């Protein structure tokens, strides 16, 4: 995947994969709301929870994971992480700078999630089958380390079980 690929440029691909346009646009909104410079896996996961027409959202809701719970787990994850170093999150105005890139590009964790989503997806074996939002969810959930697994552990969500359900979604 190109290093500078942006959500906007990727949108048609995501739609072809079966991921609603509303969700791909939402990746960027979530990242911006978080004050992030790039879209990371946690922003995609947040976006997938609010995609009402998506199978991924359905699976997450069944597991008790909605936008509010994920957002609050991410907040706690950040608090805990910074507390480890004896710090609190700085006030927004202290670190407010002019935004450089619009549209945003994808960060390392997001690109890794896309790569994992493609590996083993039906799409890889049969191009006629679109890559589904549940494959992307699987790709996001298969990260063993990082912000997403940390936040899910805090929220008490069984990440591995949900990943398996996402991959096996028919």
């Amino acid at each position: 995947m190109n290093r500078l690929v942006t959500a906007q440029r990727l949108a048609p691909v995501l739609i072809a994969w079966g991921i609603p346009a509303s969700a791909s646009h939402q990746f960027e909104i979530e990242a911006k709301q978080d004050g992030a410079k790039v879209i990371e896996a946690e922003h995609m996961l947040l976006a997938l929870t609010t995609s009402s027409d998506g199978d991924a959202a359905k699976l997450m809701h069944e597991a008790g994971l909605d936008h509010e719970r994920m957002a609050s787990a991410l907040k706690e994850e950040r608090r805990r992480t910074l507390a480890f170093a004896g710090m609190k999150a700085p006030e927004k105005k202290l670190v407010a700078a002019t935004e450089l890139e619009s549209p945003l590009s994808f960060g390392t964790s997001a690109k890794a999630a896309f790569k994992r989503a493609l590996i083993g997806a039906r799409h890889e074996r049969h191009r006629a089958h679109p890559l589904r939002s549940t494959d992307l969810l699987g790709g996001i959930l298969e990260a063993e380390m990082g912000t997403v697994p940390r936040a899910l552990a805090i929220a008490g969500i069984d990440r591995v079980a949900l990943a398996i359900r996402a991959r096996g979604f028919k």
Partner: protein
Amino acid sequence: MPTAPSPLDGPADGLAAASALRAIADELEDAEVERAMRAGWSWSQVAEALGVTRQAVHKKHLRRLLLAQIALRRRNYE
């Protein structure tokens, strides 16, 4: 197969903290370089304060400062 280590606790907390602090340091640098340049600092002064070369600051921040429409001093381009 060995069990995967927990994404919480132990080294996971420390590594996450290192990554988060790096991101905060970057955000703080962006904000403060912008503030300094708005206040009329030169590239050299900013570079010296950060402990890096003038070229490094220029490369990293010029585009954003132009976007922010900060009136850079002529010699700032030198």
